[in-house]
């Protein structure tokens, strides 16, 4: 996997760790992310499992905020943090 910079790589590693911790999954098959640097809504899948979340990072690329969202969350870029 290629990243534009180390900060983005750190963000993805941190996000995957939080998703695995929240779901108990051993791996994440796919991630869909919508939003921008202010915060992103995401959908993670593992087999038939689906997990929706909001994530935002600090300036160093560490996860600053991570919240589970309802499975019926409509998705789309977040207007602001939940």
């Amino acid at each position, binding site marked *: 996997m290629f*990243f*534009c910079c180390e900060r983005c790589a750190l963000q993805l590693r941190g996000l995957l760790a939080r998703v695995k911790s929240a779901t108990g999954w051993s791996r994440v098959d796919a991630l869909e992310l919508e939003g921008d640097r*202010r915060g992103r809504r995401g959908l993670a899948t593992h087999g038939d499992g689906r997990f929706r979340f909001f994530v935002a990072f*600090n300036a*160093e690329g560490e996860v600053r905020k991570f919240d589970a969202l309802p499975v019926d969350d409509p998705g789309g870029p977040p207007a602001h943090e939940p």
Partner: protein
Amino acid sequence: MAKCPACLVGFGPGAFDGLALHLCERANESDADHVRWLNQNVTKERTEAADLTPMVVRYFDLGGETLGEWIRARFVSKFFGKVPHPFVVALQHPSREVLSGYVIEHQHFLRQWVRSCAFIIARTDRPDVVRYELDNLNTEFGGDGPERVPHYELLLRMGESIGLERAQVLATPPLPATRRGIDEWNRIASTEHWVSALAAMHSLELIANRELPRFGATLPYFDPGILRGNDITPASQAFLREGYEADVGHSDEALSLVSRYAVELGVVEEVQATFLRSADLFDDYLIARLERADRLGG
């Protein structure tokens, strides 16, 4: 002199081709600050220097605007645009934790602020700039008796009103983004042209300028309704009211001084780059206030 808005390395006057080449080189090395600046301001596509040059020229072009208007437009777009900065959103109706994050990180910011103002006084030869900064030092740090309590003291009182011991606030080290901002603002104020330092610091006062909705801001800094009622403590109202009432004139006067002296002294391009760097540092610093709030459970 064109300068890089990510690292402030300088090129020749109008040398945006050199700047574009530098941005490409640093982005190809995956440097996070340069990638970030390109992604957020010019393009998310990988672009060769020859194609990037006209895009960078367009970005820095003042068009028919004064430098102050150019700065204000970019500030509004960055912090009060379609997706406003998360701290601005949180401050509309702030929790105790958000205000605590404000206090703990901002006392570090204000202590650097007065050092930056002092550097500008030491390095300018213009009496109106000295007077402007002296007024600023008094407002922020010196005060004038019980009727004119300085902003720094109002901040600490806000902290006490929400349960933060003054000694605890003063003993808490800044988060990394705050530390990085302070270090870079200190370097800017002590080594960049004093007009660049003036722009870098006082453009940030636009954050509390209540006139910004006239210039496209989608939100004010906070909902002015919280200055009344019981949503926040009286000491918090006093702190926020001070900035809300003071910073319109302050930021407008600073931008006027910046516009005038940047043109007169031929430093428009480096002032633009230094402002942009400062705005990125400020963006990260505002996130640090939220990060502090998150750590306190907000």
